[in-house]
């Protein structure tokens, strides 16, 4: 743009018609009209004009340059502007994107906070569970301790029971050996006493008087009673020794067959047996047969002085228990002596009236006890007797455990 300067100088110097470096003529007119001078002046003017034109051209060119420059500048500016717009556009897109991103970030954050809340909740729950767990653990530990104590106690009891069991087994074995010995050895001398008493009676009876023969008969009777006692005692101990084998059993059927046998022994007697139906029980049939033989046999025996009698076998309900009973209308007994009824060899009646060894009810009691039941009796003298027993393995209504 330095080319603009000469143009302004040319305009400023225009009124000066004489070229610089020429001295003004002393006589202007004469000088003025001189041809040479005039030509020269014209030339100067032309020269000046040319230079002026040059300058102007310079200026114009400069302006054009400037304009050119300006255009380029403008294009550049436009480019820049476009770039800026692009940038702006980009930035807007960017911004939208970033906004979306931000929004999604926010969403994520929101989600995250929800997640966090949830996590916190979960954590709290877990903590609660842990708390509970601790509590539970403490409880379990306490229970464990108690259980350990119980186990220890149980072990102690078990070892105690084991040693008791060993003792019991030893005692049982001893009882077994004792019974075996009684069974073999105690009866043999009795056979001798009886046999040789009879031999005396048979071979020398005619040499004895009535009293002598009577004495020998008494020896034999006593011997045979002793034999019966030993047998009863052995059967009593067998009740304890034999294994209990529980089965669903019809007690009524057993009672009916026993009643038939009893009626056969004294067919002239008028005895009515009332045996209920459905007397089912879960018992050892062999041992219960022995029990019922004794109870019904007693009823038969103690009604023997009656012209006619009634013997009943049935069951009833007392409180929660199913109670079986054998009832007769015979001699009965004084309830004051009821406690002695079930002891071995205890008798409440005269042998002459009612024979027996006094082992029967002791045997019945052992059998009922072995079944976990109870046995008791109710009676009054001459009012008959009722013997009750329970069998705990037998459910109510005659149903059975199996």
């Amino acid at each position, binding site marked *: 743009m330095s080319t603009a300067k000469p143009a302004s100088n040319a305009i400023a110097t225009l009124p000066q018609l004489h070229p610089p470096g020429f001295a003004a003529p002393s006589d202007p007119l004469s000088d003025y009209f001189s041809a040479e001078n005039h030509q020269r002046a014209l030339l100067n003017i032309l020269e000046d004009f040319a230079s002026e034109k040059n300058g102007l051209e310079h200026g114009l060119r400069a302006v054009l340059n400037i304009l050119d420059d300006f255009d380029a500048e403008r294009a550049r500016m436009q480019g820049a502007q476009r770039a800026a717009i692009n940038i702006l556009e980009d930035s807007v897109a960017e911004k939208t994107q970033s906004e979306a991103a931000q929004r999604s970030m926010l969403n994520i954050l929101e989600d995250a906070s929800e997640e966090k809340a949830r996590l916190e909740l979960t954590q709290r729950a877990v903590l609660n569970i842990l708390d509970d767990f601790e509590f539970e653990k403490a409880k379990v530990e306490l229970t464990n301790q108690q259980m350990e104590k119980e186990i220890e106690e149980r072990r102690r009891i078990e070892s105690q029971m084991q040693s008791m069991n060993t003792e019991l087994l030893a005692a049982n074995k001893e009882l077994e050996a004792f019974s075996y010995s009684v069974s*073999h050895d105690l009866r043999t001398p009795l*056979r001798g006493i009886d046999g040789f008493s009879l031999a005396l009676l048979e071979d020398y009876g005619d040499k004895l008087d009535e009293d002598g023969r009577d004495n020998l008969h008494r020896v034999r009777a006593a011997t045979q009673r*002793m034999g019966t006692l030993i047998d009863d005692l052995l059967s009593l101990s067998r009740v304890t020794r034999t294994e209990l084998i529980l089965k669903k059993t019809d007690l009524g059927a057993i009672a009916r067959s026993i009643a038939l046998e009893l009626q056969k022994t004294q067919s002239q007697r008028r005895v009515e047996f009332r045996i209920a139906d459905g007397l089912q029980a879960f018992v050892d049939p062999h041992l219960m047969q022995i029990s019922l033989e004794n109870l019904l046999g007693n009823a038969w025996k103690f009604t023997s002085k009656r012209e006619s009698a009634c013997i009943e076998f049935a069951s009833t309900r007392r409180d929660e228990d199913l109670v079986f009973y054998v009832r007769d209308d015979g001699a009965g007994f004084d309830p004051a002596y009821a406690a002695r009824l079930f002891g071995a060899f205890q008798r409440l009646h005269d042998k002459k009236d009612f024979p027996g060894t006094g082992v029967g009810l002791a045997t019945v009691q052992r059998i009922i006890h072995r079944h976990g039941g109870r046995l008791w009796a109710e009676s009054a003298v001459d009012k008959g007797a009722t013997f009750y027993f329970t069998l705990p393995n037998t459910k109510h209504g005659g149903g059975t455990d199996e």
Partner: protein
Amino acid sequence: MNDKAILLVEDNADDEKLTLRALKKNNISNEVVVARDGAEALDYLFATGAYTGRDVSVLPQVVLLDLKLPKLDGLEVLRRVRADPRTKLLPIVILTSSNEEMDRINGYGLGANSYVRKPVDFNQFSEAARQLGLYWLVLNEAAPARRG
């Protein structure tokens, strides 16, 4: 009635005398060989000890065997008799005081042919002897004698 011997294995002298009396009373006239313990019973049957030289092929018609015996008890005698081919089929009646379940189970288990309990009452004992004689000496047909 058969004239073969009866082997009575009995350690009690009273029971021996009573058994002999009961047999006699019932007109059982067969010879009765008495062994007073288990070992003696086996000696008789296998012709050993005091019975060395006895003809082993001659066996008693029936053995009345008590269980409680000195030396070898009745069950052991039974075991050995059944284990030997010469006496495997010999009729053996256990005649004893006890009726213990275990004795009966073991007796039959070892191959006894019969089990009779000696009653205390001599009349009953005598009746048992009569029936035993009738059955084992008259009714029952023993296994044929072993040859060779």
